[in-house]
């Protein structure tokens, strides 16, 4: 069908409640080298894991927003079967505030789509990863996430990568859970954990208090 991307029949046919997940990833210049390679491998693994789990593949919907120079929605929400994972390349500065704002807009719009078609959904998850400090003003975006989190309308996973990651900034986005520093470049462990947490979530009903799995395998607990 010519308009495949705009016409996602699965939105109607699939009765499973959806878990919208937005990955907001730092692709600024400082991510060059091993970091971006490991991140790319991790994201790839994440998509494969979700695809392979029958329940998660019916429930999870994934979007990716990158901030590296520009803010780009490199993967739009869709049925995961129809999505391709781009190779991320590092460049430019770190407009984190704008990226989080876009992520919130995108998630809000997706929820509206679910509601207007009568599809049940969970409150969205936002994964925010950075190896540095923002180059734009994050106060507006941080206020938005904080408000959503206080009203149980969003779960955020702020992750710091490497020694330069500015943890106090990440803390501003997350009034409930403290940010976590990734152990080394264990992106794979993180994304494996994330897909397993989605699987658990997808076996509950929206509104149920499902705790994410323990974070030990990928978190740097010396923080």
């Amino acid at each position: 069908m010519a308009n495949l991307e705009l016409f996602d029949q699965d939105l109607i046919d699939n009765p499973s409640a959806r878990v919208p997940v937005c990955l907001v990833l730092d692709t600024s210049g400082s991510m060059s080298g091993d970091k971006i390679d490991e991140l790319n491998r991790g994201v790839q693994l994440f998509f494969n894991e979700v695809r392979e789990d029958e329940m998660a593949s019916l429930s999870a919907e994934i979007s990716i927003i990158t901030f590296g120079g520009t803010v780009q929605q490199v993967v739009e929400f869709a049925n995961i079967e129809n999505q391709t994972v781009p190779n991320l390349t590092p460049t430019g500065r770190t407009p984190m505030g704008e990226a989080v704002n876009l992520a919130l807009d995108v998630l809000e719009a997706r929820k509206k789509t679910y509601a207007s078609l009568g599809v049940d959904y969970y409150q969205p998850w936002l994964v925010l990863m950075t190896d540095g400090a923002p180059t734009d003003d994050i106060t507006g975006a941080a206020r938005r996430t904080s408000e959503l989190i206080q009203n149980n309308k969003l779960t955020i996973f702020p992750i710091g990568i490497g020694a330069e990651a500015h943890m106090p900034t990440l803390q501003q986005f997350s009034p409930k859970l403290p940010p976590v520093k990734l152990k080394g470049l264990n992106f794979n462990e993180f994304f494996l954990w994330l897909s397993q947490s989605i699987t658990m979530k997808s076996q509950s009903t929206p509104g149920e208090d499902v705790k994410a799995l323990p974070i030990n395998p990928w978190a740097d607990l010396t923080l």
Partner: protein
Amino acid sequence: MELKALLDKYIVFIDTSTWLYPEANDWITEQLPQALKESEKRVRISGKVVEEVTKHIKNGDEALSKQAKQTAQLLNQYHKDEIIEVYQDPDDPFQDQAILAMFMKYRTKFPLAMVTQDRNFALDVENLNKQGSVQSTNTILVFYIDIFGKLMRWDYGVKEHEKRMQSSHSSHQGQAGDRNERSDRNDKSERSEKSSKPKEKIVALPLGTKVETGLDTELPVSHFPSEGESVRTDAFGELQLMKELGKGGEGSVFLTSNGMVCKIYTKMTKARYEKLKLMLDIPFNKEGICWPQSLAYNSKGECIGYMMSAASGKVMQLSMFHKKLLEKNFPHWNRGHLVELALTILDKIKYLHDRNIIIGDINPFNIMIKDYNEVYFVDTDSYQIVNYPCPVGTINFTPPEAQGMRYHEYLRTFEHEQFAVATLVFMTLMPGKPPYAQQGGGTPGENIKNMEFPYPFGDSKGNAPDGVWRYIWSHFTYKLKEKFYQAFAENKRFSTDDWIQMLESYLYAIKRGHSNDEIWPMSNKVSEENAVEVTCNQCSSQFVMHEEKKNDLDAQGKFYICNACLMKNKLTRVQRDEAAATSSAATGKSQATTRRTSSFGTNTAAKTTTRSATSAAMQARARANSRSSTASSSSARMGASGNAAHTSSSTPVVVFTPKPPGLLMQGIKFIASKIKK
């Protein structure tokens, strides 16, 4: 007994319920008249039949009114053929009582028979056989028409299929409960003894009264065996743990050397131990319920889990709760199979309920489906046993009054459970769609608390989810819709027996071709007499539309758009809105950022597009989409609004003239004249 033999020997009465029973249609329009003519006999009806039929024509809902209209015509035909006679006691308006009195009076003189679908009435008539000082040689026979259109004997108010079910798992509580309304308890027990063929005695556990305390007290365990090690069991001796089959929050499940399965916990609590002992104490033997068969111990003799029979199949959620899963796993199923599957599941639930066992956490992850007639209930150790609650649950299967309560802190009631059963039946027939999923609305928990059931029934229009779900609903029989509506909008609770009866008649309607056998119908139900074929102005396909709807569209000069196109248009519109919402919010800013980055001069990945470019591309696709169809974008909009109009009338679009037709009036006049005599 052969119908002809019955008519030769007996004076046969037919009650209104049978005249109006859709599944009796064949019997009453073909077999009975023919047999009557051959025997030169007449059936009898009471005047009540005429009154009730007339009342239903005027006041019934559409389906009932249609049925009543046909019955009136039929009565007229019977009269013309001189195969019917009306019995009327003009002094007694309470016809049931009049008939009973008449039966009482004449039962010694004449052999009498009654055909009725009404369980209570059947029981009253049957009871006449036991009353009075004179033991008559004539036994009054009471019949009903079963879901396959066959004439069957009532047996102490119990239908044949129910007796079958009783003997298969020896239960009679449900029926006994039904009968309570009209008979005292002593009478009931006497009857159920008589009705029962040889059967084992049901040992029902007492219902819980208050949650046991100290549930979390942990019992010391030195070692939990794992794969390759062995366990000791009371019933099966020492067994090897061959292979870990699965792992959950509470523990792991292993295949053992005798082919059975062993669940080993990660910690042993007093509650688990005591509950398992209670479960092992009662006689329990039901195929497909993986009930504990024996405790399992480690080498030190500490209890660490239990043995059960192996399950087979895939969890319900992953077997069938998506069109593509259902088509992959059960490619040959049709709707009848879904109903049979629901009946298979209900049969097991009934077995549990008869023993006062409340499942508690009914959900599609602890039922495994092998086929429509083979299912397995797993995780039975979470069931509520006396004062040990079921500590888990899910929102969708929790009734409004228990939303927000903590599962391990209260004992569930049968009323709670009945809500879960209704939800499971709904989600089986609408594969995977929870009853309260809707357009707009709140979270699932909020929707349940507010009893916001979105499917249309009667005057309630509803905001049902888009797509096939509405069509499935529209094809349900009236009775089934009514039942779901009562359960989910009016918060009525129905017993497992109620659902079994409901689904048996739905299954029958499907098998007889009275109800759609498709799992995924493509459109709302349109009765044949009102169907007109039109061409979709958008995709040029032929489709069927209700005549009135076509007239409306014609009057307003609007196009005909088929369901597939309506859906496509709506999806396109919704997704375009989504794209627009995220692009407009940021256009200015992101362009600025783009310019800014260009000064950094590094490459942007060729695969990625900037946000504004993405949305522009999406809009271009959207435009291309509406151009590619024959309709303009305005007609697409029309289609969408047409959709709203279409769906607002999405209860079966079957319309009847309210005025009784001439033939019917004649029939009523005839019967009235008869009554005067």
